[in-house]
């Protein structure tokens, strides 16, 4: 497999103006993002910017308790208020109103998830009633006047406690909080590996619950036309078609009469994949009122309702020999599912987690058991990385512990267990087949950048001076480019994971590309245009990209799991190639040549051996629409659609290294260096790749040091706003040096691997390993995330970091 290195300068990748790039070089150039002017000037249109005539505003009453029986809801005072248009509760709606889970597991207990709670509340954000009023603040005021008679119940928020016999039961009718039991790998082989190995190393790790914090809180505006039953929903979604399909069932509205449109969407990190009650309630409100109804979540509302991420309690054991050979891995995880099963929730701690536990290593035997557990917290679902950060955290933490236990350098232990580059595709004992990789290369590069050998000497000298510096490695692997349909179907997905892409010439020779993914900050307009311009040989500025509207696009599965470039981009490539094939026939006809003699290069068709007889593809487009003189067996028009469904996931990888100094007297952690060397396959736009790594690392550092959803013993969120939940600011993020190697993926025509989640997956364990390494003289082996000053101080002072 060809592998090349790409260096970035000390200030990162330099952007270039698209006008200064030759058409032939457009793919792979770090051109400026074309969406930025509108985002930076405020021209962007977010859901709340949409003003439809005669709009009313909805506010949603949410439970004040995490767990309660509802004895009664009195809405009379709210209804009597001026300018209140409508108030409704569960008993007023006559649609199914049950939010589905789109992923099944053999042992899954599928529980009802009503859009409005009927007789029981299971988490603090559970919706009880909807008020529609002329103005937004009137709706909120009226919500405060609804009187709910609650019978409060004991709550449970932690998955391990929830499995105790005397724990409150979240879904009474199930009689247990176990949502599912799942396993992967071979238990017997793993037991045998442990029996034969020289050492067994065990760790207990917590991967804390996180709140997603997209910049734009969720919102929806529904517009209903009674005369033709057309319902349009503009909303914050990462996957309009998925929302349309699910919503159609939830509110019993025919799918072809339903349009879901994503205007500009301000980030998601997974939190806008899922089908929440809110969009269904807004749609129902608009149908009831027969006028547009808008709902915009407040930030505190998103803290109570956005599906959270992570939430694992894990015990892991690694069997390793004296020489560092890893023999086996055993993992037992309790995964917090929250109060209900969110859209893709069952997949996250199972097939997106257990299947990645081999990391970058050749581990002969792995066995993993996961219990999904209901608790009284918001539903837990995909959050940037979704299962893969949890897996990589377990693997990279235990590899570090194993290296310490057998007295081996952690880099050497890792390297000792890498598969060779010529052993790809590489099959693991947990069902994955890694597409391509060269793990030494990213490790070497990263160690070189931090000057690892010199660091160990420096660490010694610093310790003698009473300063504690540490280095932490994370050699991560992920599976992304979520697809292929047949495989995910076997694993329980209630949907295919192909992607559609349409490429359509206009008669004047410009190009519309439409993709079923739905960007929300990634820069798809730019990267897809680069891909299409490159394939068609047309000017980059002649390509426009559409996404995010079920009425304007063929079909789509959306943007998540770092799938847009690998699956959506590839669909565009295939469509562009179909367009070129058709254009070639028309061009051959016009040039009076046989199509097999017509070559295509840089947007020009020409007759082989006679380059003067040529015709530009944009001129061919006009001929295709004029249809005055095209072959008899060719239809007019020039466009093609592809549903691309690859054979495998893609497997980006890399090494991140954190270098920190820890002050044991204050618990403060300071970054000395952070190096990210990632291999995400071919890069469409290196500046966008770099930005994704930066943002991903920021979120990973956030988890390692700052973030965490905390609940009191009653299930009340005590980190209920940004005052108490620390979202990292610029000052919290280390200067980082990014670099990359390029090992193309063989599973898609672009050779891309996906980059949206890499940084988030890689960073937490690099930081934790570095802090633990720094505090090694204090006998510190582990500290739970987030590594607050207090926890670090306690760890350095010998009480294990329990706060």
């Amino acid at each position, binding site marked *: 497999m060809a592998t090349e290195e790409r260096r970035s300068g000390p200030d990162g990748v330099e952007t270039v103006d698209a006008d200064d790039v030759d058409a032939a070089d457009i793919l792979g150039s770090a051109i400026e993002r074309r969406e930025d002017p509108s985002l930076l000037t405020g021209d962007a249109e977010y859901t709340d910017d949409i003003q439809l005539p005669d709009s009313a505003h909805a506010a949603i009453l*949410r439970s*004040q308790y995490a767990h309660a029986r509802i004895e009664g809801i009195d809405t009379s005072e709210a209804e009597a208020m001026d300018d209140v248009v409508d108030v409704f509760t569960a008993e007023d709606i006559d649609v199914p109103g049950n939010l589905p889970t789109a992923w099944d597991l053999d042992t899954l207990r599928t529980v009802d998830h009503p859009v409005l709670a009927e007789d029981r509340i299971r988490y603090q954000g559970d919706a009880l009633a909807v008020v529609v009023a002329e103005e937004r603040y009137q709706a909120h005021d009226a919500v405060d006047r609804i009187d709910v008679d609650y019978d409060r119940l004991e709550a449970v928020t932690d998955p391990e406690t929830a499995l105790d016999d005397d724990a409150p039961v979240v879904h009474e009718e199930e009689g247990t909080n176990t949502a599912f039991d799942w396993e992967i790998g071979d238990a017997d082989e793993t037991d045998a590996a442990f029996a034969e190995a020289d050492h067994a190393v065990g760790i207990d790790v917590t991967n804390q619950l996180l709140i997603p914090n997209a910049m734009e809180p969720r919102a929806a505006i529904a517009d209903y036309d009674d005369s033709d039953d057309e319902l349009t929903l503009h909303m914050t979604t990462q996957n309009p078609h998925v929302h349309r399909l699910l919503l159609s069932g939830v509110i019993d509205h025919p799918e072809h009469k339903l349009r879901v449109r994503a205007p500009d969407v301000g980030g998601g990190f997974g939190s806008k994949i899922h089908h929440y009650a809110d969009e269904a309630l807004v749609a129902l409100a608009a149908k009831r009122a027969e006028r547009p109804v808008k709902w915009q979540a407040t930030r*505190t509302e998103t803290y*109570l309702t956005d599906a959270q991420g992570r939430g694992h309690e894990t015990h892991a054991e690694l069997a390793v020999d004296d020489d560092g050979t890893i023999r086996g891995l055993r993992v037992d995880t309790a995964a917090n599912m929250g109060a209900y099963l969110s859209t893709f929730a069952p997949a996250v701690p199972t097939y997106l987690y257990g299947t990645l536990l081999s990391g970058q290593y050749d581990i002969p035997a792995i066995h993993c058991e996961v219990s999904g557990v209901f608790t009284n917290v918001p539903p837990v679902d995909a959050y940037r990385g979704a299962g893969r950060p949890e897996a990589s955290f377990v693997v990279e933490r235990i590899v570090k512990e194993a290296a310490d236990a057998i007295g081996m350098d952690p880099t050497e232990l890792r390297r000792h267990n890498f598969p060779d580059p010529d052993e790809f595709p590489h099959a693991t004992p947990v069902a994955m087949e890694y597409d391509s990789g060269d793990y030494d290369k990213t490790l070497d590069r990263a160690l070189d950048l931090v000057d690892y050998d010199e660091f160990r000497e420096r660490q010694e000298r610093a310790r003698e001076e009473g300063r504690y510096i540490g280095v932490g490695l994370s050699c991560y692997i992920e599976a992304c480019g979520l697809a292929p349909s047949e495989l995910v179907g076997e694993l329980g997905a209630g949907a295919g994971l192909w992607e559609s892409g349409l490429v359509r010439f206009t008669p004047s020779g410009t190009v519309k590309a439409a993709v079923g993914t739905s960007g929300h900050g990634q820069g798809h307009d730019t990267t897809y245009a680069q891909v299409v311009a490159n394939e068609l040989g047309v000017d980059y500025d002649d390509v426009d990209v559409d996404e995010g509207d079920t009425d304007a696009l063929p079909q789509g599965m959306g943007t998540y799991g770092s799938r847009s470039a690998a699956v959506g981009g590839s669909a565009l490539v295939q469509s562009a190639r179909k367009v070129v094939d058709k254009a070639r026939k028309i061009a051959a006809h016009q040039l009076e040549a046989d199509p097999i003699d017509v070559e295509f290069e840089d947007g020009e068709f020409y007759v082989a051996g006679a380059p003067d007889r040529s015709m530009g593809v944009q001129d061919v487009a006009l001929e295709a629409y004029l249809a005055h003189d095209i072959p008899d067996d060719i239809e007019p028009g020039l466009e093609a659609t592809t549903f691309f469904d690859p054979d495998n996931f893609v497997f980006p990888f890399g090494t991140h290294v954190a270098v920190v100094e820890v002050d044991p007297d204050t618990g403060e952690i300071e970054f000395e260096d952070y190096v990210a060397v990632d291999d995400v396959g071919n890069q469409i736009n290196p500046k966008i790749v770099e930005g994704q790594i930066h943002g991903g690392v920021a979120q990973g550092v956030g988890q390692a040091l700052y973030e965490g959803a905390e609940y009191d013993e009653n299930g*009340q*969120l005590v980190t209920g*706003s940004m*005052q108490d939940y620390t979202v990292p600011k610029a000052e919290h993020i280390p200067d980082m040096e990014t670099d990359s190697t390029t090992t193309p993926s063989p599973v898609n025509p672009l050779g891309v691997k996906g980059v949206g989640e890499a940084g988030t997956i890689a960073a937490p364990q690099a930081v934790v390993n570095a802090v633990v390494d720094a505090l090694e003289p204090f006998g510190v082996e582990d500290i739970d995330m987030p590594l607050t000053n207090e926890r670090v101080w306690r760890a350095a002072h010998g009480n294990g970091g329990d706060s």
Partner: protein
Amino acid sequence: MEFDGTVSIEGVTMDEVWLALSDPVMIKQALPGCQFLVEVEEGDVDFDALAASAPDEDPPTLPEASPEDIAERAFVEGGRYAALMEISVGSVSPSFETVVTIEEREFPHMYAGGEGSASNSSFEMSSWMDLVETEDGVDVEWGAEADVFGRVAQMGQRVINPVANRVVGRFFDSVESQISDVSTDDSSGLRDRVSGLF
């Protein structure tokens, strides 16, 4: 959330402090934002009716009031009391409809439990108080455990703790100054009359 503390009041007797802290009128006046505090029967409490019938002016408290009148209206064990408490928390000023039951009341110990609800917020709390005689007065040792729910809880401890501390602080400041009034008003023979009640 748990709170506790000790308030030392000089120049007073155990009896005086006990009587003062047994007076619903004085407690009402000492609690910041308390609109009324009245004894109620078992069952649902109609706060609107209580607000409408609450007197515009409170009857006198110590030292003006007669100790006998206070003893008459004093908290009783098992007694149930309703209060409307308006408390500013961050950007909101919810009015908590609060019901408190005096679970234990035996000199010098009192224990009460209660709950309050406002629009989309509520709390449940239990609190206790012991009086301890000191060389130059009385220590009021007190503690409270509170669970807060809903919108107010979501504001976080950074917001709630100062509010709780402010309420508690003002309450004891006010109690202290009122009881000090009692102790400085020896001339009326009040102290003898208070002692006579026990």
